[in-house]
């Protein structure tokens, strides 16, 4: 179970992480159960404002250099990643 969730979350676990999580994970989920009135709406945001829309005007673009400034690996103005094997 913990391994499945770690895989979905894309998180590598150490042996120690795995041990701790195996003991903690399910009890935490269980302890967090709530009971709620089904008639109540689901709050997404405490102070929602309707129709917060902006004008269709270009602003705040980064230069290519700024965009790549934090890239672990880049080539030809693009972000570089290892091969994708499970791609479409």
């Amino acid at each position, binding site marked *: 179970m913990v391994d499945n969730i770690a895989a*979905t979350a*894309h998180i590598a676990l150490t042996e120690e992480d795995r041990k701790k999580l195996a003991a903690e994970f399910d009890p935490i989920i269980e302890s967090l159960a709530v009971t709620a009135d089904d008639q109540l709406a*689901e709050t*997404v*945001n405490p102070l*929602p*404002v*309707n*129709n*917060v*829309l*902006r*004008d*269709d*005007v*270009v*602003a*705040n*673009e*980064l*230069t*290519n250099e700024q*965009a*790549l400034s*934090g890239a672990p690996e880049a*080539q*030809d*103005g*693009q*972000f*570089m*990643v*290892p*091969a*994708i094997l*499970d*791609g*479409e």
Partner: protein
Amino acid sequence: MKKALQTYEVVLGFEVHVELNTETKMFSTATNAFGDQPNSNVTAGDLGLPGTLPTINAVGIDYGIKLGLALNCTIAPESRFARKQYFYPDLGKNYQTSQEEPAIAYDGWVDVELDDGEIFRVEIERAHIEEDAGKLTHIGGAGGRIHDSSSSLVDYNRAGVPLVEIVSKPIVGAGGRAPELARAYLSTIRDIVKALGVSDARMERGNIRCDANVSLMPIGATEFGTRTETKNVNSTRAVAAAVESEIIRQAKVLDSGGTITQETRHWEEESRSTRSGRPKSDADDYRYFPDPDLGPIVTDAAWIERLRADLPENPVQRRRRLREEWQFSDTEFRDVVAAGVLDEIEYTITAGASPEAARKWWMGEIARIANERGVSPEALGVTPADVVEIEKLIADKTINDKIARQVVGHIADGEGRPADIVAARSLAVVSDDGALTAAVEEAMAANPDVVERIQGGHMQAVGALIGPVMKATKGQADAGRVREIILEKIG
């Protein structure tokens, strides 16, 4: 396919992604443009940098609603955006901002006209607004294919470009016309978004992308068979071929007692067949949840009616009307539609040309030059007003047909409007008798044998004198007047 249809009923379904042609992206203020330097049309948010927040493009919402209205949908009184989560490097945030339930528009329909004029109604389940992903380029392997590449490069310029995804309900009853329906449905969607002006609608550029779902069930059955989803079929021709190929493939599998695997498939143009992709289950868990950063979109009648008032005529109805008004034959009209110059012809007629003349130019010389230069006719730079002006110059006998065709080429070269070009290049037809007489006399002196034959009664030989005269006047002579002068001289 015929054989397959004796045993099976075809069920189709389409998911069509339409890229909107807003100035900026759906949730960021970066430029929405094609073909620029990689990673230059991006904000920090498009790269998913920590601390960034999305903002909703008002025009994107208007376009989504317009498209929903054109598809006869109900517009959601309240809808919102949701995060569709999966890890893939072309998504800057590793979730796609999309819509779950309800979509901005749902429960609609669109009438699709088949080749023989029959109308087939396709029910629309929903049209929702979402964002496009970035672009991956696979390098290091042979031929840039994903399977043998060692690395990929990621460009986020397209990440965040507004999309509307139009999802049809299952379509039953198309039978042997399923491929034709697929093609007609996709053309109809393209025509609608183009007429609305919400997308550039260039399929070859991926502005419109279609996923085609196909399943078969034994005739008389009520439960749908297992479906496959053929991804990113990006031309009206390909979607018809992909549907046909998938019907045949599935029928073969079922006939031999096999089962269809629920999966995504890919259309391969070279082999004209679909290839297996990844297995896909209905249980794929994208962990959708409402985006807490983005508030609800709440529509009211005033907003919707303002957009509805802006809607163009439905393309199917419009085509029927225009065909009657213009009196084109079915073939002529179909060719015009296929050439994509319906709008241009309509504007040209509105500007004062006859339907026949408008058709002649847009399907003739303009189409020819456009084809030669690899652009679409409307992008050549010749306007409906130019066509009207050229027609007028011909009617005035200022130019002849041949010169007129040259003028079209000059307009396409950006030399200006027709009358300016005729003046600047001195293209006006020479009808000054003095100049023509001199040219005729010269031609007669140079071709005494021809003169002799004409005098001998061989009237067709006149042409052999007109040629040199036209040449001498650089094609600007009024050929009728030249013939008259020759006959006067010899006569």
